[in-house]
């Protein structure tokens, strides 16, 4: 057991999966000698060499396309896209090929590969370095979309993603990279993909969040407990797609109220799918309309205005109180 931040925890998952399976390799821009711009692949190059920790040319479609070929052969590449905002340079490879190869070849081939990308705001960065684009991947059949919320689940989910026979888009919240340390066991640990986690049990309101927004949800839950005597249940999705509808429905059947928080813009975002799924499974339990607290439907606003756009505790708190007062 060691106290690790998310960067170190992810690094541990990569190290251990590479040690146990020679077919796992890492490919991306600056992932080798430099250890990645966020240091998630630090030291792997020294341990495994440049053939397994591949500094690629600066071309996202080339990285993903090459990883497709590697996975068709039987290797298990873990790609790093330096920032999720650059992934549209390879989105055609992800949507047209990564997601479809199993179907196109009718099961003869599959793309066992992971695409890691730092996403989200909170690091005072330029355009394309702060956005949340999970909705694009969550919508594509053939992909899985995972977003951990802390060091321990990040490590366990990355190990699971590497072993998953299907392609996994793995978003890492930049705001969480160095935010907190957690106890992470030394021995290999995995978690099932497709299962949400009840982060805090409660009877009055279901607060759905993932990634960096789980921190916000925890703050809101604590304040509602202290100030209003309200018990919030936090559902940390962990996997966006496939969505764990059962855990969501079970929670709302108990609480009757739901608020969804995400950093992605609102319209056609994950909140729409989550809300519909709750409505389909637990309509008769709902005592108030489901609320969404999200970024607004505007392109990148510049980091000077980022805090007004990305949901914070005050906005989530207000939405929860309005929902409870409906």
């Amino acid at each position, binding site marked *: 057991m060691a106290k690790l931040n998310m960067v170190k925890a992810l690094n541990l998952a990569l190290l251990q999966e590479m040690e146990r399976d020679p077919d796992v390799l890492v490919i991306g821009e600056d992932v080798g000698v430099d250890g990645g711009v966020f240091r998630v692949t630090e030291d792997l190059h020294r341990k495994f060499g440049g053939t397994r920790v591949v500094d690629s040319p600066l071309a996202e479609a080339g990285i993903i396309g090459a990883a497709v070929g*590697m996975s068709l052969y039987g290797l298990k590449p873990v790609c790093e896209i330096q920032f999720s905002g650059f992934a549209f340079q390879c989105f055609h490879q992800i949507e047209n090929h990564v997601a479809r190869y199993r179907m196109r070849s009718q099961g003869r081939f599959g793309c066992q590969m992971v695409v890691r990308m730092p996403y989200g705001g909170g690091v005072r960065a330029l355009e394309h370095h702060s956005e949340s684009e999970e909705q694009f991947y969550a919508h594509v059949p053939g992909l899985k979309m995972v977003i951990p919320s802390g060091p321990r689940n990040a490590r366990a989910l990355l190990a699971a993603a590497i072993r998953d026979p299907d392609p996994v888009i793995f978003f890492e919240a930049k705001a969480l990279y160095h935010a907190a340390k957690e106890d992470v066991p030394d021995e290999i640990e995995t978690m099932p993909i497709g299962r949400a986690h009840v982060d805090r049990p409660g009877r009055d309101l279901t607060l759905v969040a993932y990634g960096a927004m789980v921190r916000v949800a925890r703050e809101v839950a604590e304040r509602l407990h202290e100030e209003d005597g309200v018990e919030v249940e936090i559902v940390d999705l962990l996997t966006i797609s496939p969505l764990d509808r059962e855990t969501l429905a079970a929670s709302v059947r108990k609480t009757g109220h739901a608020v969804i928080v995400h950093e992605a813009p609102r319209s056609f975002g994950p909140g729409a799918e989550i809300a519909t799924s709750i409505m389909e499974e637990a309509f008769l339990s709902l005592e108030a309309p489901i609320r969404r607290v999200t970024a607004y439907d505007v392109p990148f606003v510049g980091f000077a205005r980022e805090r007004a756009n990305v949901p914070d505790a005050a906005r989530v708190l207000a939405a929860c109180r309005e929902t409870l007062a409906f």
Partner: protein
Amino acid sequence: MRENEPATMPRTIVEPQFTVEHLSILDSDGTLDSALDPDIPPEDLKRLHHAMRLGRRFDERMLRLQRQGRIGTFAPIKGQEAAQIGSVATLRRTDWMVPSFRETAAMLWRGWTMEHILLFFAGYLEGGQPAPDQRDLPICIPVGGQLPHAVGLAYAAQYRGDDSVVMAYCGDGATSEGDFHEAMNFAGVWHLPLVFLVQNNQWAISVPLKKQTHSRTIAQKALAYGFPGLQVDGNDVLAVYAASREAVERARAGDGPTLIECVTYRLGVHTTSDDPTKYRSAEEVEAWERKDPLTRFGAYLQQRNLVEPGLDEAIDADIARAVEAFEAVGAPDPLVMFDHAYATPSVALEGQRAEMAGRLARTPVTAPAAPPAEGEAPAAAERQSPPMRGQRRPWRS
């Protein structure tokens, strides 16, 4: 700098002039330049000839099947048989073949069955499923998208210490795509066992080569990525074979990638949805018909007395058997669509499958309308909207 004063920092040449070679072995009458004879054993020459004629005749048959509404849209290969067979024939079974979407002749050589190809173009994904031991990727439709996959395959082969070579196909249009350039760059940097085989058939649908690139050749694009590019007469199967054999040997020996530009011509339509008379002249097509790869190679083999009597009849009989087997395939089971989306479907996807299964159980399946027998003119309504094999009436809820 003042005039007549010697430059202290003169411009220097860091790279000497590049050259691009063009290789042609058979002239348009089928006469061989014996100095360049690739010395292919007679039995292999006959196999090449068979494959080229099979490619042509199957293509023609597919066109008729499409016009009758028995298969859907496809991209005919007429005119490109030498480029495809001359190159693919230099691969071993254990090498990888990465097609785009106009490689029917090369795919048949690699072991795809005609029935598979017909099924694929009739809308059945089953037709795109390679056999378990087949090192072939399925047809890739987004232009150039398959080229980075070839890079990854070649990297993986090298990683595993497997001496297999990858041959990746694309057309002249694909050389404008970013994926083409990223793949070329990666292949050069990683020094991969990979052959890029560009079939420059002069037209990307309606856009001619001169609007596609300002480069004099496509072959020279390889030079910028640090590996050889060679232009060959793509309607000369011996030239394509000789160049491909050399490139494959280089790749297998660890000497890196090669680009081969086969200068050829699409004698027919881009796809069956296209009317090329709108954008190119009959004179141009006729000029290329005189350079037909089958005529040239046939004349050469005739001179050497290597043409099998009854070759076309035997090929037609094989095609007829394949069409018959294809026609015997039953209506598609819609539930199969859930089988290969994921290795293991999610609970939600299982739910969607169950929903469909329930609906199918309640709604009796109507057999698809029989397509007209071959040779019969389809009814007017069918000409407007040709029925696809296996197409059902819309479900009623």
